[in-house]
């Protein structure tokens, strides 16, 4: 597999150098792997820190900026960052109002953020944590590490970020983040596996003419493999998998997310099908985002995320945001 890299060992550092060069509004510490809003700490504002393995760009570094994250900690590809990074980030963004850790529910992420929270509290920083676990493909939570954090991470970061920007206290920002996660569900499909720089070849074998249903965002296979389906059939499968788990009574935010290697031409066609299915199921869509936001390197495929909202969450969604990957109202 050809890749536009120098060597596998420096992929993350090289990307961070590029982020630094492209975004002077961010402070990018390449050596310590922390991306921080340049104006942090913002006086009287709760800090929001997230992070996770690299390979999901623009998540999380692309969501650092006004109205969203205060800082992001990128790990190695598909590997959670280490506690030292989160502690450094927390110290950089804490204005005295405390810091919220937004953690995707993966064994490694949870352990490292837990260790970081203890260390940060030792340094006198008040820390709250919210787990994101929106992936309905994981049905057997008793015998697994639990539902994975996927597309809803974007909703949690945006809506909690807007709440923090409005000056809400830590407990309120945390409650909103929790509410967003509890009201969000995702389902993803892959048409091809992805290739990590360390391995250099696809992480699993997906024969031509087949697709993988219920994938995560780490190149791990899903729970079921079927003969290739049309965009319309995939939309019905994904939406119904979500609605089987959560039946929204209110309008929803809709994220139609590309996994990295699916062209926008296909993604918009898929979005048309998702919209058709949602209308047929009487689900009202309040706001829409279509694009590559929570990716899995060069995996082809897409995920659908629904977030049931109320008036406050809709206001927070519409609030101004200025980050490399999400920007409106400013």
């Amino acid at each position, binding site marked *: 597999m050809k890749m536009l890299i120098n060597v*596998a060992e420096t992929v993350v550092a090289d990307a961070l150098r590029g982020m630094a060069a492209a975004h002077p509004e961010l402070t990018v510490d390449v050596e310590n792997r922390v991306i921080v809003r340049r104006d942090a700490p913002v006086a009287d504002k709760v800090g929001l820190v997230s992070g996770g*393995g690299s390979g999901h760009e623009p998540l999380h570094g692309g969501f650092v900026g006004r109205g969203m994250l205060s800082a992001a900690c990128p*790990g*190695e*590809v*598909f*590997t*959670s*960052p*280490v*506690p*030292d990074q989160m502690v450094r980030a927390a110290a950089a963004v804490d204005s005295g109002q405390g810091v919220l850790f937004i953690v995707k529910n*993966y*064994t*490694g992420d949870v*352990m*490292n953020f837990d*260790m970081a929270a203890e260390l940060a509290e030792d340094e006198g920083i008040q820390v709250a944590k919210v787990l994101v676990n929106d992936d309905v*493909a*994981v049905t*057997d939570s008793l*015998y*697994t*590490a639990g539902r*994975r954090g996927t597309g809803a991470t974007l909703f949690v970061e945006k809506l909690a970020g807007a709440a923090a920007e409005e000056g809400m206290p830590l407990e309120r920002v945390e409650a909103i983040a929790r509410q967003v996660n509890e009201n969000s569900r995702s389902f993803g499909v892959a048409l091809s596996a992805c290739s*990590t720089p*360390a*391995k250099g070849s696809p*992480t*699993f074998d997906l024969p031509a003419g087949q697709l993988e249903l219920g994938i*995560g965002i*780490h*190149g*791990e*296979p899903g*729970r079921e493999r079927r003969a290739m389906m049309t965009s319309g059939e995939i939309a019905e499968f994904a939406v119904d998998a979500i609605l089987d788990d959560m039946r929204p009574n209110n309008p929803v935010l809709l994220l139609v997310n590309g996994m990295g290697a699916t062209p926008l031409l296909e993604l918009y066609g898929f979005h048309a099908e998702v919209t058709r299915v949602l209308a047929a199921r009487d689900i009202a869509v309040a706001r829409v985002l279509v694009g590559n936001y929570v990716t899995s390197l060069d995996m082809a495929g897409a995920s659908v995320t629904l977030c049931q909202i109320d008036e406050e969450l809709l206001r927070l969604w519409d609030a101004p945001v200025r980050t490399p990957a999400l920007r409106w109202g400013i």
Partner: protein
Amino acid sequence: MLDAEFFRRWMTATAAAVDREATRLTELDSPIGDADHGSNLRRGFTAVATVLEKEAPGTPGAVLVLAGRQLISTVGGASGPLYGTLLRRTGKELGDAPEVSAEQLAAALRAGVEAVTKLGGAVPGDKTMVDALDPAVAALATSFSAAARAAAAGAEATVPLIARKGRASYLGERSIGHQDPGATSSALLIAALAEAAGEDGAGA
């Protein structure tokens, strides 16, 4: 009796084994994980070997505590906290004695494995590193080489199991038929212990 130099040899031998087997560990991590176990552990144990050479801690406990802290700071993922906790807790159990007996090491390693179990929530049979470490600790009463053989056998015995923890657990029954990468690297760690003791590690 085992001194700090013995524990440095153990860590150096582990670093060499992980470096040698990194590709295999990553291959094992591909079908049921995310294809990075070898590269992550190599980064971590290389850093451990470097810091031990630089700081040269003087007691067995200090060697393992420093090694564990270094793993937590460099590996990431679940492996960093788990292996880091294993070595740190084992090191703390050894206290600041300049030399320890094989029996003391066995008891300390038992405490280390219990800390891993507590942190990760895995029990034997969940297709994790515990499946190699648990039998190894039990066999340590016999000899280092017996522990190495028990760990290797434990790793191989993960092949037919269904993963209940970590990223492989999302696959459910599709995780059957693959050897667990974490159990495999744990077997390397115990084989390196036998190697440091001058006993045949019996491979992994």
